[in-house]
């Protein structure tokens, strides 16, 4: 066989060997990709099957909670009245009065410290002013649990008495009892 023929055969064999090597390697890589995609598809099918009932369950939970919130708001408005209910909510959570209720809406919140009775304020203090409510949802508690005496000093914002009032028969100021007989003095 002439030399060019031998070289041609060698070249063709080289091409075939290169084709075999690279194509087999590509087939192996594609097989790995297929296996990986099969695992992925199986996991995605699991995700779909597991998350299928989530929507219905969450919708049911939200519906129940909405009904409860609406009922409680309605009860509060029915018993306290719209203005007082908004004032109480705003007293517990400042700013919440502007948002108002879901169904009843809102109205101008009154100044709770001027309008409300002591009992209502006590209820309000169970929220942000109570020492147990230091971690209230709308900021720190109004009452400082560690230095609670500071609140008492606010009763005398200008001139606080330096001593306690003297009482008894030796007191410098004698007060007459209301039901005393003024003619006897």
């Amino acid at each position, binding site marked *: 066989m*002439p030399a*060019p*023929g031998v*070289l*041609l055969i060698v*070249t*063709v064999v*080289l*091409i075939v060997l*290169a*084709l075999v090597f*690279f*194509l087999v*390697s*590509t087939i192996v*890589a*594609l097989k*790995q*990709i297929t296996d*990986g*995609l099969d*695992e*992925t598809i199986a*996991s*995605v099918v*699991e*995700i779909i099957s*597991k*998350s299928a*009932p*989530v929507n219905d*369950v*969450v919708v*049911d*939970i939200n519906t*129940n*909670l909405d*009904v*409860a919130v609406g*009922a*409680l708001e309605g*009860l509060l*408005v*029915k*018993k*306290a*009245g719209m203005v*007082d209910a908004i004032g109480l909510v705003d007293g517990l959570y400042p700013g919440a009065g502007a948002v108002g209720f879901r169904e009843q809406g809102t109205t101008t919140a009154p100044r709770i410290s001027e309008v409300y009775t002591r009992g209502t304020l006590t209820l309000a203090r169970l929220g942000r002013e109570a020492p147990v409510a230091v971690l209230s949802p709308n900021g720190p508690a109004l009452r400082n649990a560690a230095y609670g005496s500071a609140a008492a000093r606010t009763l005398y914002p200008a001139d606080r008495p330096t001593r306690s009032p003297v009482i008894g028969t030796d007191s410098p100021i004698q007060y007459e009892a209301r039901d005393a007989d003024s003619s006897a003095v």
Partner: protein
Amino acid sequence: MTLWWILDLVLLLVVVPVVVILLNGVLSEAKSIVPSVNRISKAAAAGSKDLDAVPLLLTTQDQVRQTVNLVADYGGSLNTILDDA
């Protein structure tokens, strides 16, 4: 004979490198996909595992119903006890 030599040289110096370069490109791209597919597979498996707690939502749903019923009972009692505004 000369033409034969020219054909051999063209095959050896042009066709073989071109074939090798093209096949190597296909192989390298195919191999680069494998790690990405493996990462996607692991992420999907982890996501599926994260959803194992989904059945607990049924417990939450039941407890919410019980709580709402309890709140409704308390509300009914308060509605009876307290006067309207």
